């Protein structure tokens, strides 16, 4: 089984986990992306939402599980064919939530381009933006190295 290990700077990444954990509780109750089809009847939309929330919660749990004892001891996280798909989805969910709750002041154009002056941001926004970038890096790494596992599953 293909396994990718990434060594992270513990003092930099550990504080970002607090941001992810805080958002994880909200993601148990609310979808990261708005429910698309507007013409679903109420009962069907509720069932649809419930099923999506269950999957979203499991994905975010897989993301958080990556930061285990090995991470806190050695700063190492690992992805493999078993967790790649869930983590890639969870990073998308948390990034969408970060934008919704913390990064709106930056504006979508700036968010899309990534041209942000970190020093000029207030502390909470800077932390949220660093988390946003960190999760993008995780996502890109997985797509780069494990896309065939995801496509084949």
């Amino acid at each position: 089984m293909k396994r990718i290990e990434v060594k992270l700077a513990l003092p930099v990444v550990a504080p970002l986990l607090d941001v992810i954990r805080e958002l994880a509780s909200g993601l148990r109750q609310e979808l990261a992306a708005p429910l698309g089809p507007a013409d679903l009847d109420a009962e069907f939309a509720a069932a649809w939402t419930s099923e999506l929330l269950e999957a979203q919660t499991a994905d975010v749990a897989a993301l958080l599980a990556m930061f285990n004892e090995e991470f806190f001891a050695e700063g190492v996280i690992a992805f493999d064919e078993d967790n790649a798909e869930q983590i890639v989805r969870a990073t998308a969910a948390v990034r969408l939530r970060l934008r919704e709750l913390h990064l709106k002041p930056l504006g979508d154009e700036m968010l899309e381009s990534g041209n942000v002056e970190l020093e000029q941001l207030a502390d909470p926004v800077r932390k949220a933006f660093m988390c946003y970038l960190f999760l993008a890096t995780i996502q890109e790494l997985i797509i780069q190295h494990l896309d065939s596992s995801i496509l084949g599953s």
Partner: protein
Amino acid sequence: MTQSQSKTQGSPAPHSAVATEWEGRWLVVVLNDPVNLMSYVVLVFKKVFGFDESTARKHMLEVHERGRSVVWSGVREKAEAYAFTLQQWHLTTILEHEDAT
């Protein structure tokens, strides 16, 4: 999991009215968002629709540049199933009846 099945339960009269409502071709439309990475959107299109790399990229660029891309069209039940799957991957997705476009 389809809406059409729940919609068509009940007496014969509502059944036929609703069946007419859901007939025809439905478009699965993915809308742009400023968050999801281009590489991620390409991966999702390949995974969900089985697109090759160039087709997936073409649709991703449509979403990015025009704000939307029609990624599939066909019967309502299957359109709903695709919308559900795309929602699992956190892409903003809507369904449109082809007559409405």
